[in-house]
């Protein structure tokens, strides 16, 4: 691990189906849902966005801009050197409105707002305008690895300029159009379940989630540092579980760690009896006996759910505590929570590993 660049998470802002917008409270109360669509718990937007700006923003832009604002305030950074966002599907609801109007109006007399707010880079542009950031601005739209691509980009940039602050984030919305299509493909469960019982189900599909999470990433620590992001890696479409197991082993070896060095691993199981197969195998083999938690019963499944996992891992290290409803096995907290490994999966095709350590 010596000589390898490290990255500091110096601020976080996240809006999710749980009450996560308050950085001082760490899952003190859990939101439960009796339907398969989990939507964001939001604060009063007027506390974060000026009313003139607020009136034209759609729900997801409000959520994204609020999360980014919370992150900037948390990191005590006014203007970052760059802004990078990632999304699996972008603003699907707004895209649907735009396309509907296009059809209804026979491609004439289209209102500009729907179009502007349906573009993938609308959020990163909006944040840049809000904080007057003239620096690097990019948006990745790469389905289940969108957030991982954002991180990859920021990490490469920080190697060149470790002093810089990059505001990086991810967002995906629980859009109706995606829900109906996903039900047909059995990506989401056909039967209604209670979200906190997600991992007790034995059927195909997960539950739909959404959220926006922002992180201030820098090569230098600050007095607001949550934890260190030591490394991140992803695998696309592995041939079998063995390839993922070998990937985990190589990732740990690259970082001079063994499985026993991991105080907690966070898995990205989605409650899908079929698509969780690799994660289940990892739990029974590679990570057997390692303190363990999972998160998708809290935030639902989305292309960028790994951003929720990164917040969860960083929060656990910061608070040195795993909330009781999240404990899986063994139930007793380890003596320390210094090294956290997140292993996320999306559709059993996109796998990513995040290694977090205490500052």
């Amino acid at each position, binding site marked *: 691990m010596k000589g390898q660049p490290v990255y500091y998470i110096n601020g976080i802002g996240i809006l999710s189906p749980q009450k996560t917008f308050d950085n001082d409270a760490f899952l003190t109360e859990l939101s439960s849902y009796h339907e398969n669509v989990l939507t964001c718990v939001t604060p009063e937007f007027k506390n974060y966005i000026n*009313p*003139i700006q607020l*009136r*034209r923003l759609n729900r997801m832009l409000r959520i994204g801009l609020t999360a980014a604002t919370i992150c900037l305030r948390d990191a005590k950074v006014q203007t970052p050197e760059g802004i990078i966002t990632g999304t699996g599907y972008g603003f699907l609801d707004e895209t649907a409105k735009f396309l509907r109007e296009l059809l209804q*109006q026979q491609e004439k*007399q*289209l*209102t*500009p*707002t729907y179009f*502007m707010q349906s573009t993938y880079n609308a959020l990163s542009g909006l944040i840049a305008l809000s904080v007057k950031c003239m620096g690097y601005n990019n948006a990745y739209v790469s389905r289940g690895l969108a957030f991982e691509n954002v991180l990859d980009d920021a990490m490469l940039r920080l190697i060149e300029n470790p002093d810089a602050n990059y505001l990086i984030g991810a967002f995906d919305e629980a859009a109706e159009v995606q829900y109906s299509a996903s039900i047909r493909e059995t990506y989401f469960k056909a039967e209604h379940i209670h979200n906190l019982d997600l991992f007790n189900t034995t059927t195909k599909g997960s539950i739909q989630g959404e959220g926006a999470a922002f992180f201030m990433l820098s090569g230098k620590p600050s007095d607001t540092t949550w934890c260190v992001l030591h490394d991140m890696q992803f695998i696309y479409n592995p041939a079998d579980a063995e390839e993922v197991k070998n990937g985990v082993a190589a990732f740990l070896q690259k970082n001079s760690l063994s499985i026993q060095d991991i105080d907690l691993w966070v898995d990205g199981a989605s409650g899908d009896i079929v698509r969780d197969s690799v994660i289940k195998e990892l739990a029974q083999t590679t990570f057997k006996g390692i303190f363990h938690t999972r998160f998708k019963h809290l935030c639902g499944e989305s292309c960028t759910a790994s951003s929720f996992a990164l917040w969860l891992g960083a929060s656990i290290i910061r608070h040195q505590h795993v909330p009781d409803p999240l404990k899986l096995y063994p139930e007793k907290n380890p003596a320390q929570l210094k090294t956290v490994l997140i292993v996320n999966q999306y559709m059993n095709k996109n796998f990513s590993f995040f290694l977090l350590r205490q500052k």
Partner: protein
Amino acid sequence: MKKTVDELVVELRAELIKQLNLEDMLPEGFNENTPLFGEGLGLDSIDSLELVVLLDKNYGIKLKDPKEGRHVFYSIRTMAEYIHQNSTRV
């Protein structure tokens, strides 16, 4: 029967609030003579595009000269007067 300017003022006010999400945003003392842009309501260039589309969609009026727009979109009353004079749909 053709709508009067005053009827159009009432109709436009409701339409503007809906189209531009101005609910809870109207400043104290706002009326049909308050300037929509600048020191008045503070609308911006995107709003002006929305207003151009609104004129076309609801009243069948196509504004082609940007200079004309400055006068037409000065206030709700100037919009109502312009629609009253130029629209065949009211």
